[in-house]
């Protein structure tokens, strides 16, 4: 808590207006996948309060917004039944029952939409606070240490028709199939042949989804031969040096894709397009660490190819640059051997738990484990993403939306064209184009976003972020790692106004709420302003009168 401050303070400022925090925990674990559950279990029974939250089951309306994953409208009707979904989530993860038995406060269907750590400029809040929301409520939870184990999502990839129902993220399909038992897909083609993509296709095939083909832009599949052989054994074709040029379909969604052969620069080789029938396209071109909470809370993040892209900067105990925030599992980095063995993520969870316990004054047993080390040499995810975007997005006929929420094409992005709602005023900026807004610098995705609106829609940029970064790198002929990361801001899940409005506030907040600074002198009309100003003689007015 803030020590009592005897200095006079500006009554219109935040001081003295900290929200009442109804609940508190010692260790908050976000995400009940392998890493999160093993962190929570590793810390259990040591006398600290542990809260384990997981957003699954995600409300079906949120899934419809392609949040947190691109579900592509391939959820079966059962997702609307919340109780059935809760049961499914419990059944899919037997360790959750163990966590409950061991006294862990488990909250399912609960998303963390913001982490608000105490820092120099938020001392007034009086402690670390997390913003939580379930289907109805939004509330605050105080915490002392937090382990973020939020997993991953899929990189989006535009081609003609990719906004059709049935085009979905590979991990979204896995989530629906494995956690919810609610994947409505019969025949799928998989785009991408890395380890994460093949592993998911293998799991889906085992559940009876026919994987018609694996399509890979590169000359060869990057994932393990063993998984590839299992798929081909089930009749999957492996088409390398190919991209999807078009997904066609009807009101229910995709019915077929047209596949083109491309050369090393992503150009069509001129061979005839091949048509494959399918009802689902699985986007598996890139697994992206889900760092939105981590980045929005201010932890340092860097592009680390060996960890699969932008990930938090971590020390040997999985600790981020904010000493009370840890990351474990996929959101701490993605590499092939980690994907293939859950034990790696679990070990990260246990390491983070031990460090968090020590910070809470509980000594760990035995020697601390060595942190898992990414595969070496790393797979070049930067080059892979650039190649996919060059072959699929830049060369797409018909100019598909890269940002489907705001309907922004790749040309719009590269020529910094103002959005469509401006009608006739759209063309003005074209004389300048991308280089002009920030000459001599790598184009900044945040600037591109503000001018074109790409990434500003309800899916919060989940489908277009990585594509935009790659487009900017290609346009500037710079490595992907040089393109700054567009910032994340809370709420990192879309939250209804009437939910967010439920957050508690102190009576002082309402007593002195002003629309702007509450400074009486600011609004004295210029014809009545005295010629000199001093604090002692200034006029003071009543609260609430800011303009």
């Amino acid at each position, binding site marked *: 808590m803030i*020590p009592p401050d005897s200095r006079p303070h500006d009554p219109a400022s935040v001081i003295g207006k900290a929200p009442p925090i109804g609940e508190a925990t010692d260790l908050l674990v976000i995400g009940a996948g392998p890493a999160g559950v093993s962190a929570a279990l590793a810390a259990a029974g040591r006398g600290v309060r542990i809260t384990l939250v997981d957003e699954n089951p995600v409300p079906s309306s949120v899934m419809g917004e392609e949040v947190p994953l691109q579900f592509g409208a391939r959820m079966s009707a059962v997702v609307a039944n919340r109780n059935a979904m809760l049961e499914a989530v419990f059944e899919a993860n037997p360790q959750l029952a163990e966590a409950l038995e061991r006294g862990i406060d488990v909250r399912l269907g609960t998303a963390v939409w913001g982490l608000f750590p105490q820092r*120099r400029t938020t001392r*007034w809040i009086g402690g670390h606070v997390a913003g939580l929301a379930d289907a109805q409520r939004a509330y605050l939870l105080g915490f002392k240490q937090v382990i973020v184990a939020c997993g991953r999502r899929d990189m989006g990839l535009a081609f003609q028709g990719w906004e059709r129902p049935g085009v979905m993220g590979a991990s979204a399909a896995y989530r629906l199939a494995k956690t919810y038992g609610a994947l409505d897909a019969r025949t799928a083609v998989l785009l991408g042949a890395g380890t994460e993509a093949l592993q998911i296709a293998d799991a889906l095939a085992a559940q009876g989804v026919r994987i018609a083909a694996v399509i890979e832009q590169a000359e060869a599949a990057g994932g393990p031969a063993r998984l590839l052989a299992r798929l081909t054994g089930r009749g999957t074709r492996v088409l390398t040096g190919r991209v999807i040029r078009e997904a066609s379909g009807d009101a229910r969604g995709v019915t077929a894709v047209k596949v083109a052969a491309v050369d090393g620069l992503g150009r069509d080789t001129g061979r005839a397009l091949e048509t494959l029938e399918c009802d689902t396209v699985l986007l598996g071109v890139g697994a992206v660490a889900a760092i939105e909470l981590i980045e929005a809370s201010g932890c340092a993040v860097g592009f680390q190819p060996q960890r699969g892209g932008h990930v938090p900067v971590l020390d040997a105990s999985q600790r981020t640059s904010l000493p009370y925030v840890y990351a474990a599992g996929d959101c701490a980095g993605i590499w092939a051997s980690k994907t293939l063995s859950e034990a790696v993520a679990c070990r990260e969870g246990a390491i983070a738990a031990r460090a968090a316990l020590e910070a809470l004054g509980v000594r760990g047993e035995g020697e601390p484990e060595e942190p898992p080390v990414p595969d070496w040499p790393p797979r070049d995810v930067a080059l892979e993403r650039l190649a996919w975007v060059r072959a699929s997005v830049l060369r797409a006929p018909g100019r598909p939306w890269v940002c489907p929420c705001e309907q922004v094409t790749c040309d719009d992005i590269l020529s910094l064209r103002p959005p469509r709602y401006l009608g006739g005023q759209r063309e003005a*900026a074209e004389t300048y184009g991308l280089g002009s807004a920030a000459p001599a610098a790598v184009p900044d995705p945040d600037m591109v976003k*503000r001018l074109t609106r790409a990434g500003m829609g309800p899916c919060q940029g989940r489908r277009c972020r990585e594509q935009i970064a790659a487009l900017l790198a290609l346009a500037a002929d710079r490595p992907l790692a040089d393109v700054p990361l567009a910032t994340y801001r809370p709420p990192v899940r879309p939250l209804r*106004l009437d939910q967010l409005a439920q*957050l508690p506030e102190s009576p002082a907040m309402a007593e002195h709420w002003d629309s702007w600074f509450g400074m009486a*002198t600011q609004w004295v009309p210029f014809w009545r302003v005295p010629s000199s100003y001093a604090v002692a003689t200034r006029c003071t007015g009543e609260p609430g009168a800011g303009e």
Partner: protein
Amino acid sequence: MSRAGSEGAAVIVVGGGVTGLSAGWWLARDGTDVLVIEAGAIGSAASGRNGGGCSHHHSPLFLEEQRLWPMLDELLGYPTEFRPNRIRIALDERQFRLYRRALENGARQGYRTDVLDAKQIRALVPFAGEVYGGYFHHFGGHANPHRTVQAYAWALQDHGGRILQHAPVLGFDTRGNRVVGVRTSRSAFACDHLVIAAGPATGALAAQLGVSVPLMSARAEMIVTEPLALMQTGGVDGNGLYGRQTLRGNLAYGGGPHEWVELQDTGGRAYSTVLQGSIARRLRALFPQAAHARVIRSWAGFIENTPDGRPVIDRPASPGNLTIATLSSVGFGLSPAAGRAVRDLVVSGTCGFADLSTLGLGRFAGLEPGWRALQGWLPAAAGGE
């Protein structure tokens, strides 16, 4: 004005926010050789993070603000998304009384305001519910801050002006009573005249030239919803909030307590906080018919403030070729007029279209040295780090 050698410009403007860019544009329009130097990316500070409101009826620049905005797209040649007029809704009698000031100030300067009853408000504002009353101001309005920043920048370049980004100004070279050069992290530039329009950093930069500009910084934040059906008038606010429905349809609103900060403590990034819940609570009350709208983003920014909350636009006696412009939290709306005023001060020493006497530094001659503490403008005490 002559050009001060190849590595320089006749006029150097420090700060690529709306104030500096507008000033640069006005100067470039006149054919003046101008270089705007910005520490980061243009508009990356408050100028790209504000509410977009353009209704400053208390200011000596009001008439010019109102004259310029409706023609700004045409003058600049790029869209700003300016939309005229403002509706302000009072949910209770007290708000209704407090909000009346805009009617009075506007009327005195020749602008009309209609008083609205609850029924009229619900007809004009489909998201409104139970209200006490409100005002329809036939003045003011709002624009898109990002687009406006970029429009100034492109227009400035169209007239031959230059912008240097990612080059923080570190210091100045003086000769006698004049500033002759500007040192940046990249290289040095000569100048005949210097404009400091560096937002919250204006005080520290001016101090290097012996000019005292009392300033303190504060953090404020806003929330944004997903796009909704467009209301007839986007500039609707009230119930303790400022903001607008954007032309795309998003509701973008802020208000409530600010936080006094020492800029050097902030690490440069302004974070939004749990205050977003309190903003949402008031927005929900203002627009009950939009209660289902999803909040998809928030942002925060650092704001420059003088002790009386009024801008400083002035040419100090010494150095003789320096102009200072810092807008004290109302700089977005005033930017077209403020830039023109700066141009006038640079070119002729006085403003040709408005009386700037209330915006001079002279008013602070008797300011107590401990004014920040006396006004309680202090960051929260240490603790909980």
